[in-house]
C-alpha cells in the first residue's frame, strides 16, 4: 500500500513533463491527458484513504522511503514520504478540487492557443503541492514549497504578454522567497539543534532543547507561512496574483497553495506548543490578517480582488486557529477544507460571470445577472451562504468553532482574539453580501466592452471587440459541473465533519486535540456570531440593495480609499523597498566602477605618470647622463663608506 504514495506525486509530475516537453503535437489532446492524470492521482488518494480508514486510529501513518537524497557527512536528507491523517486530508482536497478545476479549465481555456502548457503547469502544481504535504522531512517539504511557488509564478504570469501579469508573477515569487528564507533558516536551526530535520526526530525531541531556540524556529516557520499564505506583512502579492487565469485563482490562490502555511504550522504544532510566545505571535498575525483582508475585501470593485481579500481574511481565521494550539489545530484544518470548497466555488463562479461578460471584472458594471446565468447564480449563492457562515452550511461549522476556540484561549488575549474573529465574521457577511448584490441583483449596469489594452485583465475566451455590448450567457457544461460539485461541498462538508466530531477525531492522532471552553459558553458565542452576521448582511443590503449603485465608484470615506489601495501596504513597499533598493544598487554600481575598480585603475595611472616623469630624465644630452653616472658613483662610494662607518 505504502508504495502507492510515490505514485500520487508521480502521476501529475509525469503529466507536467509530457505536456511541457511534448511540443505542438499534443495541443489537441494535452488537456485531456492533464485532467486524466489529476484524476488518477485523486483515485490513488481515494484508495489510500479507504485503506487508511480500515486501520486502527493510532496506526494510520504510512511511510515510504525512496532513496537517500543528499548523503553528506553528518547530514542526512532523504526522499521519503509520510502519509498520515493530516496529509491525507490535504491529498484529497488537492487532488479532488484540483481535478474539478482541470475539468473547468478545459472549457475555460478552450480558445487559448497555449492551453497545453497551461495544463502542464497545473499538473506541475499538483505534483509540487502533493510533495509538500507528503514529505517526511522539512527539506523535502521545502522542495515542494518552492515548487508550488514556481507553479504559481508560471500560472500568474501565464499571459506574459501583459506587463501587469508578468510583474504580478515576479512579485509573488519574490515575496514568497522572503518567506522561503524563513523556512531555510528554520531548517538550518533544526539541523544545528537536533542534527536532523526529519519530522519524527525533530518534533519528537522538542522537549530536550531550550524554549528560546524553539521560539526562533517557530517564528522562522511563521515567516515562511506568512509568505505562502499571504499573511501580514507578506500579504501584498495575493491581490496582484489575480492577474492569473481564474481557475488558477480558484485552485492555487484560494483552495490549496495559500493554505500551505497553515499546514506548515499545524504540522509543526509540537514546536509551537512548546513555545507559547511563538504561538501567540501566530494567533496575532492571523487576527490582524483576517481584519486586514476583510477590510480590503469591502472596498474592491474588481470581483476577483474582492474575493482575494476574502481569501486572505479566511486564511487569517485558519492561522488564528492554528495559533490557538491543540484547541484550534483541528478546526484550522477543517475550515481550510470547507474554505477550499466554497472559495473555489466562488472563484469559479466569478470566472463564469466574467466569461459571460466579456471578461469585465468591475462589479459596478454587472447587476441583475441572476436571470442570465442561473446555475452560476445558484452555485455562487450557496458558496456565499457558506462563507458568511449561514447556519447549517459548511462555513458555519468551521468558522463558529474557530471563534469559540479564540474565546476559549482565555485571558485578555482570548477576549481580544475572539472579538476580532467575531468582528471579522460581521465584515465577511458585509463584503460578501455586497459582492452578491452588485453581481446578481439590482438593475443591469453593463457597458460596452472595455478596450482590451486598458482592460485590467483580458482573458482570451471569446474574442473581444471594443465597443460591443456584452450578452450574458450561461457557461458550458464543463464549467458548470465543477461549480455544482463544489457547491455540494460547500453545503454539506461542514455538517458531515461535525457529525459527532468525526473530523476532529480523525485528525486527533496527528494534531492532538483539546476541547476549548469559551468563558461565556459555546451557545453564547454562536449567538453572537449570528448577530454579527445579520448586522453585516443588513448593512450591506442598506447600502447596495435598496438604492441604485453608481457605475463610477464614489470617492468614498478615507477608510474606503485606503482599503482600495490595500491599506497603502503596496505604496509602503514601493517607497521603502523598491525605491530604496534602486538607489542602493545604483550607488553600488557607481561604487564598484569608481572606487573598487578605480583603485586599481588609479595605481596603473600613477605608475604611468611616474614613468612619464622619469622619462624626462632621459633628455638626450650625453653630459647629463655623465652627471647621473658621476652622482651615482658618488653615492656608491659614500654608501660603502657609511656602511663601514669610516
Amino acid at each position, binding site marked *: 500500500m505504502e508504495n502507492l504514495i510515490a505514485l500520487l506525486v508521480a502521476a501529475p509530475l509525469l503529466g507536467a513533463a509530457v505536456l511541457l516537453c511534448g511540443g505542438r503535437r499534443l495541443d489537441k489532446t494535452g488537456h485531456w491527458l492533464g485532467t486524466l492524470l489529476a484524476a488518477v492521482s485523486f483515485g490513488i488518494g481515494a484508495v489510500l484513504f479507504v485503506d487508511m480508514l480500515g486501520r486502527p486510529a493510532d496506526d494510520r501513518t504510512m511511510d515510504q522511503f525512496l532513496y537517500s537524497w543528499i548523503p553528506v557527512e553528518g547530514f542526512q536528507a532523504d526522499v521519503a514520504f509520510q502519509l498520515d491523517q493530516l496529509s491525507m486530508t490535504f491529498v484529497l482536497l488537492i487532488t479532488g478540487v484540483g481535478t474539478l478545476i482541470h475539468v473547468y479549465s478545459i472549457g475555460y481555456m478552450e480558445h487559448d492557443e497555449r492551453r497545453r502548457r497551461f495544463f502542464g503547469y497545473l499538473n506541475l502544481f499538483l505534483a509540487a503541492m502533493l510533495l509538500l504535504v507528503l514529505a517526511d522531512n522539512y527539506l523535502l517539504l521545502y522542495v515542494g514549497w518552492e515548487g508550488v511557488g514556481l507553479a504559481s509564478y508560471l500560472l500568474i504570469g501565464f499571459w506574459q504578454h501583459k506587463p501587469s501579469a508578468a510583474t504580478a508573477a515576479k512579485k509573488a515569487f519574490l515575496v514568497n522567497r522572503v518567506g522561503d528564507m524563513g523556512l531555510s533558516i528554520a531548517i538550518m536551526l533544526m539541523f544545528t539543534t537536533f542534527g536532523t530535520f526529519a519530522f519524527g526526530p525533530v518534533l519528537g525531541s522538542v522537549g530536550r532543547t531550550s524554549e528560546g531556540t524553539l521560539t526562533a524556529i517557530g517564528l522562522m516557520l511563521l515567516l515562511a507561512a506568512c509568505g505562502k499564505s499571504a499573511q501580514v506583512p507578506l500579504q501584498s502579492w495575493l491581490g496582484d496574483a489575480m492577474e492569473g487565469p481564474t481557475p488558477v485563482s480558484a485552485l492555487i490562490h484560494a483552495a490549496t497553495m495559500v493554505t500551505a502555511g497553515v499546514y506548515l504550522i499545524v504540522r509543526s504544532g509540537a514546536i509551537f506548543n512548546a513555545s507559547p510566545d511563538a504561538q501567540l505571535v501566530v494567533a496575532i498575525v492571523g487576527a490582524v490578517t483576517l481584519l486586514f483582508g476583510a477590510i480590503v475585501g469591502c472596498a474592491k470593485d474588481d470581483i476577483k480582488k474582492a474575493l482575494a481579500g476574502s481569501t486572505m481574511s479566511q486564511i487569517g481565521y485558519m492561522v488564528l486557529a492554528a495559533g490557538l494550539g491543540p484547541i484550534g489545530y483541528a478546526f484550522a484544518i477543517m475550515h481550510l477544507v470547507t474554505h477550499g470548497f466554497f472559495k473555489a466555488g466562488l472563484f469559479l463562479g466569478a470566472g463564469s460571470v466574467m466569461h459571460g461578460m466579456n471578461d469585465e471584472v468591475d462589479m459596478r458594471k454587472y447587476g441583475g445577472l441572476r436571470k442570465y446565468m442561473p446555475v452560476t447564480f445558484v452555485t455562487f449563492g450557496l458558496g456565499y451562504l457558506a462563507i458568511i457562515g449561514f447556519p447549517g452550511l459548511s462555513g458555519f461549522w468551521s468558522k463558529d468553532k474557530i471563534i469559540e476556540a479564540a474565546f476559549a484561549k482565555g485571558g485578555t488575549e482570548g477576549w481580544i482574539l475572539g472579538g476580532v474573529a467575531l468582528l471579522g465574521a460581521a465584515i465577511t457577511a458585509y463584503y460578501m453580501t455586497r459582492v452578491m448584490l452588485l453581481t446578481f441583483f439590482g438593475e443591469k449596469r453593463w457597458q460596452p466592452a472595455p478596450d482590451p489594452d486598458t482592460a485590467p485583465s483580458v482573458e482570451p475566451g471569446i474574442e473581444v471587440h471594443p465597443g460591443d455590448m456584452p450578452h450574458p450567457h450561461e457557461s458550458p457544461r464543463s464549467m458548470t459541473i465543477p461549480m455544482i460539485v463544489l457547491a455540494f461541498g460547500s453545503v454539506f462538508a461542514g455538517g458531515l465533519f461535525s457529525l459527532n466530531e468525526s473530523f476532529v477525531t480523525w485528525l486527533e492522532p496527528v494534531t492532538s486535540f483539546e476541547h476549548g471552553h469559551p468563558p461565556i459558553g459555546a451557545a453564547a458565542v454562536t449567538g453572537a456570531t449570528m448577530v454579527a452576521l445579520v448586522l453585516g448582511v443588513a448593512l450591506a443590503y442598506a447600502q447596495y440593495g435598496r438604492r441604485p449603485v453608481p457605475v463610477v465608484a464614489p470617492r468614498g470615506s478615507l477608510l474606503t480609499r485606503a482599503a482600495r489601495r490595500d491599506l497603502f501596504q503596496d505604496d509602503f513597499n514601493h517607497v521603502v523597498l523598491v525605491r530604496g533598493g534602486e538607489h542602493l544598487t545604483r550607488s553600488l554600481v557607481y561604487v564598484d566602477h569608481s572606487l573598487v575598480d578605480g583603485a586599481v585603475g588609479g595605481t596603473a595611472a600613477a605608475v604611468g605618470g611616474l614613468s612619464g616623469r622619469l622619462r624626462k630624465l632621459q633628455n638626450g*644630452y650625453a653630459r647629463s647622463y655623465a652627471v647621473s653616472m658621476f652622482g651615482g658613483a658618488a653615492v656608491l662610494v659614500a654608501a660603502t663608506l657609511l656602511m663601514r662607518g669610516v
Partner: protein
Amino acid sequence: MNPVNYLYLAALLFTIGAAGVLIRRNAIVLFMCIELMLNACNLAFVTFSRMHGNLDGQIIAFFTMVVAAAEVVVGLAIIVSLFRTRHSASVDDASLMKL
C-alpha cells in the same frame, strides 16, 4: 717629500677631468678631459708603485697609455665622422634620441 701628496694631486687631476667632462660641450675637449682622468690614474699607479716598492703600478701605467692611445684612435674616428655630418663638435647637438 711625502708621496701621499702625489696621490692628492692625482685625485685633484681626476676630479678636474671629471668636472670637465660634465661641464664642457665640445666633444674633443670632453675627450681630452677623459684622457686627463686616465693620466690621473697613471699618476696614482706610479705613486702607489713607489710606495709599495714593486713595479706593477709602473707597468700598468704603460698599459694605460696604450689603451688611451687606442681610445684616441677610435674616439677621434667617431667624433670626426660626427663632426663631418653635423659640422659641429658639440655633444649637446647630438641629442636626437631622448625620452
